[in-house]
């Protein structure tokens, strides 16, 4: 297992290195000369060429691109994500400031999704009631198809404008969390439910379930002891991917509900053309995602003996 973990760790490091590369060079997609952009911010509208050139020199923008990349990387390693071009706030500080809100939202979303998904998934896999099963399958398909921005607006309309139960915006209390977390949770639960269902159904078809029955165990033992753990393994792996889904969804949900998290920061920075902030946010999210999928992989390895032992030896 250690080998497996080491292997995954190396992979994640490589991926993170790649992520930095993409984040750095994506900036070159933006039209315009970066030196000019910075100079504009610094010296205002009426620039002359010499000012741009001096910025270029001061910021090291005259060096070859790969050299700039390494300098940027060096800063990164010292946890320096640079400063916002617009507000000249420290990018990392700003992100860390918004992090708790995003974590709060995603964790609540995850909990809600699991709370909805696991019972539905298990129920629809076991219930031989065709109607119920079809209903579950149908609703999980609806859940997958419903765009979360629309869901968010529907929830606002229903719970905030019509029923006046939850506030439609803002951050702070549990009732503020309700709608954004529901939006995120519902739209994700359908995927999880589907996966749980499919995975359980697949496991229940396995020969070892038959073998367990052949040993005279009751259905309860068969399901709880033999099926569930196996069935939840892929769900665990999926949790890693879910996090990506959550983070992606958070961008939209945070924007709809004015939730002061990283997602909203990212969207706002995109509109403000605050490239260093955009870069920082995207990089941060990607690294966060990579690390958490690493954690999930390790968890998986601990749970699954096929990996825990010798697979990578």
């Amino acid at each position: 297992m250690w080998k497996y973990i080491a292997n995954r760790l190396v992979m994640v490091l490589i991926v993170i290195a790649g992520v930095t590369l993409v984040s750095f060079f994506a900036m070159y997609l933006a039209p315009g000369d970066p030196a000019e952009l910075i100079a504009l911010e610094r010296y205002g509208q009426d620039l002359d060429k010499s000012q741009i050139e001096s910025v270029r020199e001061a910021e090291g923008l005259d060096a070859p691109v790969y050299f700039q990349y390494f300098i940027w990387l060096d800063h990164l390693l010292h946890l320096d994500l640079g400063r916002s071009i617009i507000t000249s706030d420290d990018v990392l500080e700003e992100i860390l400031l918004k992090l708790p809100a995003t974590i709060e939202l995603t964790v609540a979303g995850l909990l809600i999704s699991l709370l909805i998904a696991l019972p539905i998934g298990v129920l629809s896999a076991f219930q031989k009631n065709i109607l119920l099963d079809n209903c579950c399958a149908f609703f999980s398909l609806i859940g997958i198809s419903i765009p979360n921005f629309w869901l968010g607006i529907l929830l606002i309309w229903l719970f905030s404008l019509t029923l006046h139960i939850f506030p439609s915006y803002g951050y702070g209390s549990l009732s503020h969390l309700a709608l954004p977390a529901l939006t995120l949770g519902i739209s994700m639960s359908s995927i999880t439910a589907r996966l749980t269902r499919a995975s359980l159904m697949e496991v229940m078809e396995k020969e070892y379930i038959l073998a367990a029955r052949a040993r005279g165990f009751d259905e309860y033992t068969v399901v709880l002891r033999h099926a569930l753990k196996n069935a939840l393994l892929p769900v665990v792996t999926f949790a890693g991917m879910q996090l990506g889904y959550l983070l992606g969804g958070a961008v939209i949900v945070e924007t709809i509900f004015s939730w002061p998290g990283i997602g909203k920061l990212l969207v706002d920075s995109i509109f403000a053309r605050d490239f260093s902030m955009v870069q920082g946010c995207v990089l941060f999210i990607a690294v966060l995602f990579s690390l958490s999928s690493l954690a999930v992989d390790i968890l998986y390895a601990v749970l699954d003996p096929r990996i825990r032992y010798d697979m990578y030896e």
Partner: protein
Amino acid sequence: MSENIKMTEKLSMNEKKLSLWRFGKNRLALFGILFIAILCFLALFAPYISPNDPFVQKLDKRLLGPCHEFPLGTDEFGRCTFSRVIYGTRISLGIGILVVAATSIAGTSLGLLSGYKGGLFDEILMRGVDVMLAFPNIILALMIAGLLGPGFLSVVLSLSLTQWPVYARLVRGQVLSLKKRDFVEAARALRPSNFYIMRKHILPNCMEPVIVLGTLEIAHVIIFASALSFLGLGIQPPTPEWGSMLKSGIPYLRTYPHLCFIPGLMIMLTVFAFNFAADGLRASLGQYTKQEVLDR
């Protein structure tokens, strides 16, 4: 006797026919296909179907409910919502098909090459894929669209740039397992060119999952594209796009919620249809577990 003949017919039904038959039995999939067909029809004949010009503003007829002239009412500029929704199919389907065409071709070819050739190329490409997939969901697309500035092209470009790895990874996995199959070895024993083997033996065998994935991806891409537009980074008004229509309907949510409901519903139904179709395809192409097929 006649029953016997019928049964023999069924036996001689080849795999393709059997797939079709399975698909036909899946009602939801049929609904999906039907809805997609309707959408395509709407998109192709939008100018003939829509009662009004989707761009023309009638400021004296703002925010009307459904009426004779405007079947779904009007928006905040007095434009016909019905016509705009119909024209919206063009954009959504257009982006979906364009992106999926581009990414599936690029992703499949790269995955094919990478899986077949192996070695350093494979290693580099797969790390590249890992890197692309390390950016969650729509975030990278968001960034690219943001950097490129809004517009149709930038939506297509940003989604294409971010969606190809899905295919590359899928196809590579397929190729790796196909490569181990004896028929590829047998074909190699004939000593044709590598290109021949890829084209003739490997590609056709990984097309089925690619087709299923492509159908699913159309659904994804449509959601992503409308999300970008919803955030204001995609298609810009006044172009009738469902996501941006939804967004501009928000201020009227209390009084005219249908301005939000209709485009949202269209996105959902479209995505729904593609998901159903993909589900049906997957089942009929035999990519389900044994049980699921038997259940049907």
